[in-house]
């Protein structure tokens, strides 16, 4: 009797899991292995030939490829750094301010700050390109009004500023995500703990640093890993603002644009799906490494703070 119900229950598990497993396998796992396979082949005389790790050797051994790759990786790291240093602290600060009970118009601020997140990259890229345009933009005019016109530069066209500018635009767009997650985490902190702290004389800023911040650390960890994955997959904003050539002089090149140009080709340069897949695999490995480090080194330690 008991054995029968158990086996019936197992059937249920399989049936309920099946749709998700099938869809995930068809849409994620198979293409992933397809990409891996593509990266191990090379086109020779209209035929796909197995070449082992040759494509990876080209990517790292041939200076033409490796320079582009390391440049993209370096730029990606800087892109990520700006997000970690600007987006997440600002997000946390806004969330902390929003959770102050005395603040009015909370709903308005929350919505206003979150709205850019739901906008399309194309709209954001186009709007900011217009705002910062030296010809028709309002940025130079606004600076002129306060007598700071000399501070204006064609930021998107200068090698030394372009990537940072785009990173900051991306920060503007996505600051709502850490804000929302941290805000939710802050609201879930039981009042009893804060009140207990108050009795012991911990109030105001002290309460934030000593009680709230340790309690929201797991959320900050999640945000960091989301930022990491999002940034190393970045492509859209750079593509809409600087084109597939990551102008000026490849200074805004991220792994995404490098992959795009290689895989699909660009203008007279024909696409090379095999090398493109090789770059895609490297992106996958880099992101995988980051996520694994987070899961095994950081998250396991963070559990100790949880109650």
């Amino acid at each position, binding site marked *: 009797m008991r054995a029968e119900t158990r086996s019936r229950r197992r059937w249920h598990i399989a049936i309920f899991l099946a749709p998700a497993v099938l869809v995930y396998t068809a849409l994620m796992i198979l293409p992933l292995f397809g990409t891996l396979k593509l990266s191990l082949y090379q086109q020779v005389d*209209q035929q796909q030939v197995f070449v082992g790790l040759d494509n990876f050797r080209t990517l790292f051994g041939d*200076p*033409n*490829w490796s320079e582009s790759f390391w440049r993209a990786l370096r730029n990606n790291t800087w892109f990520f750094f700006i997000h970690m240093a600007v987006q997440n602290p600002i997000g946390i600060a806004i969330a902390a301010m929003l959770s102050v009970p005395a603040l009015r118009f909370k709903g308005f601020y929350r919505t206003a700050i979150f709205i850019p997140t739901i906008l399309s990259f194309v709209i954001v890229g186009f709007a900011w*390109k217009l705002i*910062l*345009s*030296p*010809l*028709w933009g309002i940025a*130079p005019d606004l600076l002129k009004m306060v007598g700071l016109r000399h501070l*204006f*530069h*064609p*930021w*998107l*066209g*200068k*090698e030394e500023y372009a990537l940072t500018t785009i990173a900051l635009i991306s920060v503007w767009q996505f600051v709502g995500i850490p804000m929302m997650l941290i805000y939710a985490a802050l609201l879930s902190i039981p009042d009893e703990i804060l009140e207990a702290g108050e009795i012991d004389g911990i109030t105001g800023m002290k309460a934030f640093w000593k009680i709230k911040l340790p309690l929201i650390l797991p959320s900050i960890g999640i945000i960091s890993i989301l930022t990491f994955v999002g940034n190393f997959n970045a492509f859209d904003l750079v593509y809409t603002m*600087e*084109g*597939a*050539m990551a*102008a*000026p*002089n*490849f200074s805004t090149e991220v792994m995404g644009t490098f992959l795009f140009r290689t895989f*699909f*080709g*660009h*203008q*007279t*340069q*024909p*696409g*090379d799906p095999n090398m493109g897949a090789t770059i895609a695999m490297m992106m996958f490995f880099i992101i995988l490494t980051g996520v694994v480090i987070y899961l095994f080194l950081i998250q396991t330690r963070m559990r100790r703070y949880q109650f």
Partner: protein
Amino acid sequence: MKNTRLVGLLLATTMFGGTAAWAQTTLTIESWRNDDLSIWQDKIIPAFEASHPDIKVVFAPTAPAQYNSALNAKLEAGTAGDLITCRPFDGSLALFQAGHLADLTDMDVLDNFGPVAKSGWSTDDGSATYCIPMASVIHGFIYNADAFEELGLSVPTTTDEFYALLDKIKEDGSYIPMAMGTADEWEAATMGYANIGTKYWKGEEGRKAVIAGTMKLTEDGWVTAYEELAKWGPYLGDGYEAQSYPDSQNLFTLGRAAIYPAGSWEISGFNAQADFAMGAFPPPVVPGGECYISDHVDIAMGMNAASPNAEAAKTFLEWVGSPEFATLYSNALPGFFSLSNAEVTLEDPLAQQMVDWRKSCHSSIRPFSQILSRGTPNLNTEYWVTSANVIRGTMTPMEASQHMQDALDSWYKPAQ
């Protein structure tokens, strides 16, 4: 009323179409010229269909940036149209070698075209031609004639006059001397380097010498071209580093800039947008030197080798090679100059002015289009970046030339 008639007509064609003596064939054209959709639909295709009632033609363009990859995918999958608009040189050569484009060498209509016109769509040894040449684009400078009159300026013929002129416009301050930006990079290369540089490397002579390996890109002509380009920065508008291609077009058509380094394809757009008189002048010559222009073979049409309607497609291609098409196309799209040997009169004065340069100047195609952009790094892409860098001043002309030569050396071994 109109609808019922249409339905009736459709019914009639389905019922009688099959049994009629002339079974109608539908040809589909693959193209990247989505800007020209209305011109094809309203002018070119009706002209063809009028004389060939048994063939129906559909113009189905793709966005330019996606054209090559989309076309490749369609050809691989066997869903591509019957007629393929051909990019010049390697893009189409690869399609021909892969067996996607039919060999058209035997078509008589090819006799209407000269060797330079055919070079864009022939194998390296010239033994096979696989697309019927349609048009080329010419580079030069378009200027605001009203502004020139206002400031009392005359059209420059030498480089000395050209830069004196730019200085004068800059000093006066009411116009931006030249409308060009470096944000999109390709403008700096094609409208800059290829435009003014051709005279330094003596057009075809220098271009072929590099392909043959008898000249290096670090030699005089190629470096001097960058040296002239390096002078441009100060004459471009404030913040030109972030100025995109549409920005430059608008700047000129709004009458805020005096000179526009142009490709002839701009003509129809400028005619529609600008409300001032315009003129054009070829790239100014070095004092005492000869005139060279970049006259780049740009567009042709070939046949999908797997097309089930090969006969009809050939009929259409015969027509594309005819003098009738040359006149029709060049006038419908001023700035796209037919490559046909047939005498074509253009109604647009600006276009006529530009095409007349062919009589007094040596024509040459863009320097790195043939053979030299076959490897990785692709020289056609590299010269976008180096040209933009030279204008921005982040690379010296010598560094740019060295970079180009290094890029070429890394994969190209000239056959000697």
